[in-house]
């Protein structure tokens, strides 16, 4: 088995890190730079930044945050949200991102995947698929953070995206996203078995077992986690700074978690995975300061 990656995902709205459930009802959790630095120092294998309101405004607003992050964080950074064309991708890469994650624009114009992978290299282009389970057991791909139905089958879309030159696929279960009920194993496995490129599972991890299951049963090559890590930091650390802008900051101020989430740290997750026989990048905290 290759080394499994654990990838914190930071949903960003304006200047703040936010988290919702089913991608709605966003709560402000703190400053993304603070969380990013913490994850970097604690063994994150990569980071994902998502501008969760970009599709609404038709543009990605993360350039400043990406630039500040890229100067001090030396692991791969994927940026997504509202990237519509080659110029948008170029701007985010110039700011210091290593890869871009595209959903809506690729769905509207699949040839964008081919053009972008030719221009920037396949490994730079990550296709994000957000899926909702249908009553018949199939999965439909959605766009605009789970708001817009497309009528496209998630598996077929994954195969097509890979053929067009996508380097990786992030598969998010909107049904599970932010709920802590566990990742969708069936969805992940179906996607992972239909394509030969790496698949990153996202949405729903409530505890360490869920992460293990999506690797062993869902055959994910990487797991992207958010709430399970973010709430751990909200609980343990003082969030300082200005949290102007929209959003519900009550959860952050009152250090309230959320019952389905057993918050944990990256180190705990990795130790647990390694004890379960899953290989991942080992990490010793003291090395960082040697």
């Amino acid at each position, binding site marked *: 088995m*290759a*080394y499994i*990656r654990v990838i914190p995902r930071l949903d960003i709205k304006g200047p703040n890190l936010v988290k919702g459930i089913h991608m709605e009802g966003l709560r402000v959790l703190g400053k993304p730079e603070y969380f990013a630095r913490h994850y970097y120092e604690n063994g994150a*294998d990569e980071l994902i930044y998502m501008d969760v309101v970009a599709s609404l405004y038709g543009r990605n607003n993360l350039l400043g945050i990406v630039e500040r992050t890229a100067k001090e964080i*030396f692991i791969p950074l994927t940026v997504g949200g509202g990237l519509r064309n080659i110029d948008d991708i170029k701007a985010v890469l110039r700011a210091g991102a290593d890869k871009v994650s595209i959903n809506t624009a690729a769905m509207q114009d699949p040839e964008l995947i081919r053009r972008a992978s030719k221009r920037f290299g396949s*490994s730079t282009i990550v296709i994000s698929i957000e899926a909702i389970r249908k009553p018949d057991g199939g999965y439909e791909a959605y766009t605009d953070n789970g708001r817009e139905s497309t009528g496209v089958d998630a598996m077929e879309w994954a195969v097509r995206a890979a053929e067009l030159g996508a380097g990786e696929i992030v598969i998010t279960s909107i049904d599970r996203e932010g709920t802590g009920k566990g990742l969708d194993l069936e969805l992940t496995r179906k996607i992972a078995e239909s394509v030969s490129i*790496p698949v990153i599972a996202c949405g729903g991890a409530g505890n360490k077992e869920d992460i293990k299951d999506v690797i062993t049963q869902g055959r994910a090559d990487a797991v992207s986690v958010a709430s399970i890590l973010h709430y751990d930091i909200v609980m343990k650390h003082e969030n300082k700074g200005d949290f102007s802008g929209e959003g519900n900051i009550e959860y952050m101020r009152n250090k309230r978690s959320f019952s389905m989430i057993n918050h944990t740290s990256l180190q705990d997750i990795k130790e647990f995975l390694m004890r379960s026989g899953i290989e991942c*990048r080992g990490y010793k905290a003291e090395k*960082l300061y040697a």
Partner: protein
Amino acid sequence: MHDKDSPIAAIIDYGMGNLFSVKHACLSVGLKGVLTSSEEKIRSADAVILPGVGAFPDAMNALRDLGLSSVLREIAGMEKPFLAICLGMQLLMSKSMEFGCHEGLDIIKGEVKHFGNPVDQLGGRLKVPEIGWNRIYKSAHKENSDMWSETLLDGLEGGEYMYFVHSFYADPQEKDIVLSESQYGNIRFCSSLRYKNIFACQFHPERSALSGLKIYKNFALSTRRSKGDRYREDPGSAIRTA
């Protein structure tokens, strides 16, 4: 960070891949990274970095169109520290089998091979490209366990994790130049080598957290040394320690 006296590293910009993380990594160790495709700037720089992500034939065509193949061949073998990363490492070889057989810069004898269908110990197929962390081990071709000292891997231990993104790997003819090997399923490949003034690695040191920054730090040191010790070592400008 750097000041006006920082040594200059020419980061060769031939339109392949994202060079900004390379530039940021240079900055963090006190090198001024300059993205350039100018032969003159490459010649006058204190060090040269050949990065790259993408397809081998496109990259070779781009280097030829920009007229950079000969200056790169010339710099190989000079004193100037030369770091080649990922596709940059592959381009140094004689030829590649990516999309047919294509000639490389032919600075190092050997060829670039595809992973094929790597399998794990249980026979499970591994994904190609390999995207993610993998370990680097001291080359089995050398007896000397101290082989990494005096190279850019100085200070790292065998088994260190680095970040890889690739479907192909360089297989040099002369095994003596191999510094580290890595294992992907049943395939063992050369993950870094040293040849004259060149250090080439298949992984991305600028994306490999502190283990990778150590390589940049060593690169900055050797650049200062080759510049004639005009610059004192400045550990404070290197990796953040707190």
